């Protein structure tokens, strides 16, 4: 295991994070505040409690997930896409590093950044609604596993993308609908039965449901199912990355 190599990539990526941390944090924080003003205060006061939780508090886990998913994907995608674009990838390819080590470095850094931002969003939410987290350790677990899984997905997108267009569009095209329809702002039990069934095909439903359970002990699907689904999704991403590395797809000529 080339630990120095992993550390070098991780440190390099984190340096990039610290250089741009202002921008990285500002946008999700502002978005969160807007959501709270609109949904929490303005509309939320007219919406009844869901499963005994006030609407403002109900949307906190979903909002964090919304931010964290987008961040994980774009951090990891940009992280690996940039060296491909500028050509500095030559050094990574010629170094005595296995592809697993390369992925650990990039995905680890992207996930770290998302975890930091997710925590900041959580703290921001604390200004608007009283936060009462029933299972903090489980909550941290969900946060970390989500950041890692979606950073893996971002890593794949960053290798697949052959232009900035794709790099930016895909997260928007995929993540926004999935999170909005994943129960960020409502409980899927509020949907007609058919749509409930369709919703269960959306991996984000399990993330948000499990995450919300760690806050309020209320969820759309059972905790066990949530955790299983997350690991299946993660295994899927790893399998794709394994294939990419085996074939050198879009990395080597």
């Amino acid at each position, binding site marked *: 295991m*080339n*630990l*120095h*190599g992993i*550390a*070098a*990539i991780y*440190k*390099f990526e984190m*340096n*990039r994070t610290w*250089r741009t941390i202002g921008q990285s944090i500002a946008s999700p924080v502002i978005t969160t505040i807007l959501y709270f003003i609109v949904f929490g205060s303005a509309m939320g006061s007219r919406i009844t409690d869901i499963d005994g939780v006030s609407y403002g508090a109900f949307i906190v886990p979903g909002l964090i997930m919304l931010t964290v998913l987008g961040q994980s994907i774009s951090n990891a995608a940009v992280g690996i896409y940039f060296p491909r674009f*500028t*050509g*500095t990838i*030559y*050094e*990574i*390819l*010629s*170094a*005595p*590093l*296995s592809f697993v080590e390369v992925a650990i470095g990039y995905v680890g850094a992207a996930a770290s950044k998302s975890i930091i931002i997710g925590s900041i969003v959580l703290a921001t939410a604390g200004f608007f609604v009283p936060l009462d987290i029933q299972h903090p350790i489980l909550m941290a677990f969900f946060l970390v596993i989500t950041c890692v899984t979606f950073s893996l997905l971002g890593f794949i997108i960053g290798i697949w993308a052959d232009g900035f267009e794709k790099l930016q569009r895909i997260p928007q095209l995929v993540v926004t609908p999935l999170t909005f329809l994943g129960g960020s702002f409502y409980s899927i039990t509020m949907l007609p039965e058919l749509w409930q069934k369709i919703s269960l095909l959306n991996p984000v439903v399990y993330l948000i449901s499990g995450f919300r359970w760690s806050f309020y002990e209320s969820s759309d699907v059972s905790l066990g199912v949530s955790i299983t689904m997350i690991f299946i999704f993660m295994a899927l991403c790893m399998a794709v990355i394994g294939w990419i590395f085996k074939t*050198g797809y879009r990395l*080597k*000529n």
Partner: protein
Amino acid sequence: MTSAIHVTGLNKVYDNGFQALDNIDINVEKGEIFALLGPNGAGKTTLISAICGIVTPSAGQVMVFEHDNVKAYRKARSHIGLVPQELTTDAFETVWNTVCFSRGLFGKSPNSKLIESILKSLSLWDKKDAQIRMLSGGMKRRVMIAKALSHEPDILFLDEPTAGVDVELRKSMWEQVHRLRETGVTIILTTHYLEEAEEMADRIGVIDKGKIILVEDKNVLMKKLGKKELVLELYKPLKKLPESLATFKLQLANDGQQIVYTYDSTKEDNGAVTLLDALKQDGIKCKDFNTRQSSLEEIFVGLVGKK
């Protein structure tokens, strides 16, 4: 002699069907300076990339100090430092960080003393905290050399190292290369400055259209293919060469002050003595003479032209 790089039957067909390398066999010995010469598009960069693991070969094998560069890629790659042809650097990192990053990638623990000495030897020390985007092209090239040296490679690849570097710096880079070789580093370089290969290399490999045309010790190559010129300084300038000397195909130079005789140095009898006799008979007196070897450039153009 141990071989540093041993390439056998290397082929590369790019995805678009273009064959960039055609059955390359090459052996580079430990401690030598090997120059790869070839025109644009000959396959020099492709060959280096295949050895370093950046391009996947279609067939063939590369051994680096007896380690297969696919099966034992960690061992093979950790011997190699690469300075690519293109100036590809990060923009926002500082010089210091980017060089330390390279060392880390190759699995070496931090060593600020060493990095300091590398940066000093490349006259980059005063730029160590500068962001790379603020450096000139020549400085960036030196940063890339520093990155390649940061992990103490045994083999250094320099893909056109002096492209875009001014004359003074070029000379100092040549010196640096020689100093590196003295510490036992094997160096493989490609260059369009043929003067550079002549100046630096121990052996020269000529590559064209993906094929190695020949590999030869530099001096042997120069002798083998070298035409020599004999330049005679005359006492009295000549307006015209006498008819009797026509068989020697002489040329008048320097306003008739010099006679230039071109001959093949590989021939048993080069005809120089006969020429001197003939001149004596015609009463042409010489005050001085010297011989000149044709440059590698002339040899090279001859070689590639023939194929």
